């Protein structure tokens, strides 16, 4: 298993990327005993715009908590896709939302690239806002960055009632999208 993961979850404000990053990091650190760090940054423009959530997961001490060279990128907007597609190395993983990004129109990435209809799936579930959880499912299924149960446990711990239900559902749909379950 990989010792260190540098993950970028990129898109725009309101897509729940921060929460997704926290869930991923919590799953790694609280359920699997690894070290994890989550940071975020907002676009340079005040309004709307680019947002990213960074997660570093490691079995070692995390010296620098930010992402320097991502080996896993989730892109939820065309801007985010464009920003990373070009620069990712072949061994990295790029996962993107086919509901929002027309990859054929974009430069091809050298990275291992996977597209899934996150937003459409979320819309089917009745809340566009859970596209983040759908993505998490797909990330876990595609990369095994954390165990599927770890993330499930984390979701159960953080949400309760209807929200837990909805988010778990979305997560499972994501796992399924990427062939797990």
């Amino acid at each position, binding site marked *: 298993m990989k010792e260190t993961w540098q993950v970028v979850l990129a898109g725009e404000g309101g897509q729940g990327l921060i929460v997704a990053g926290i869930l991923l990091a919590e799953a790694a650190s609280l359920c699997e005993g690894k070290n994890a760090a*989550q940071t975020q940054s907002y676009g340079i423009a005040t309004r709307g715009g680019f947002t990213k959530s960074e997660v570093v997961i490691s079995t070692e001490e995390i010296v*620098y*908590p930010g992402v320097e060279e991502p080996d896993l990128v989730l892109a939820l907007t065309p801007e985010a896709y464009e920003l990373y597609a070009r620069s990712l190395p072949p061994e990295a993983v790029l996962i993107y939302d086919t509901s929002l990004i027309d990859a054929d129109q974009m430069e091809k990435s050298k990275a291992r690239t996977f597209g899934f209809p996150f937003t459409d799936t979320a819309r089917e579930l009745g809340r566009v806002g859970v596209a983040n959880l759908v993505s998490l499912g797909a990330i876990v299924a595609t990369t095994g960055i954390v165990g599927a149960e770890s993330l499930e446990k984390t979701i159960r711990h953080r949400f309760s009632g209807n929200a837990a239900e909805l988010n778990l559902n979305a997560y499972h749909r994501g796992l399924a999208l990427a062939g797990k379950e």
Partner: protein
Amino acid sequence: MNIANRSKDKNESTVDRGSKETRRLFLQGNEAIAEGAIAAGARFYAGYPITPSSEIAEACAEKLPAVGGVYIQMEDELGSIAAVIGASLTGVKAFTATSGPGFSLMQENLGVAILGEVPCVVVNVQRSGPSTGLATRPAQADVMQARWGRHGDQHLIVLSPATVQECFDLTVTAFNLAERFRAPVILLADEIVAHMRENVTLPDPAQIKIVNRKKPACPPEEYLPFKPDPDGVPPLADYGSEYIFHVTSSMHGERGYSQNDPANAGAKIKRLFTKLDNHLDEILLVKHHYNPADELDLLIVTFGCTTRPARAAALRTPNLKAGVLQLVTLWPFPDAFIAEAAQKARAVLVPELNLGQVIREVQRVVGKEKPVFGLHKSNGLGFLPAEISARIEEVANQCLR
């Protein structure tokens, strides 16, 4: 309503320390500060929201009343620090958190805490200035202000965390030092560490070292609230206890009533300095992120959010032995540690998210025998390891090859 579990015996905490085991949590730096404060026994928070410190207030608003404490949102920062001082004098550990603009507003009353010798903790989560500046962005430009921001001769302790774990640990330390020295302590965090989330280990509360202020033991009639013990620190009673006492922002004698005698004033002001400077062994904290016995090519002096990119960069200097000395205590400035480390190095580099603050002190300490280089950045962004590596490369080319 009341503050629960007021400690009754001197130097011994009877605060309910909650759960009885080590807990591993995934926390934001700001949350860890709030947890650290509660773990240290803080039961009073007065503050005024400001980015990027507001999560501390929000956590306190939720948690303090649950442990019998009080969260009060004041009308401004002038009032917040005033309320903290008032609360502390009743025997409750009290604190506030703010960021640059609010910290500027607290300066006048911080002076009251210093002269009145009132233990309390002020968290300043630094953001990018000057003025309103880039309110959501990181900076480390309040280092000099923390030490010199108020009028008149004064001295105080400033600690600076670089990890979420240190956010927790140093908040506990800050309260302990405040209580130990009957003085305000500043926790100088920054937007990066405050908004970062990491796994932290909260020790079994029973294992956390908690220091409580010295209480008087003499009969109430004999109590002199500003008469120092041999260690320079006078015991402090609680308002409402059997001890009656006065605290004033004016110059005062041992009784705490205002007094103008120059000899008294001179001695008092000097004691405010010596009560810290005579106990540097208890106050000065640094972390050598290298073997301190080693000779270095380059000593990198860091604090707060600069530490981790600098450490990452130091690890990537194959042709050069670079070591990071992290200043955990920023004030009193750890002169001796730096002098000693610089002695064993050929050059010194000070990266900081400002246009030159700690470097001035390092220059003062190191003198001109060893070259001291800076790496200064003030644009609302943190350092990447690569930026520090590039500067190391420059320095190496200039004087290490």
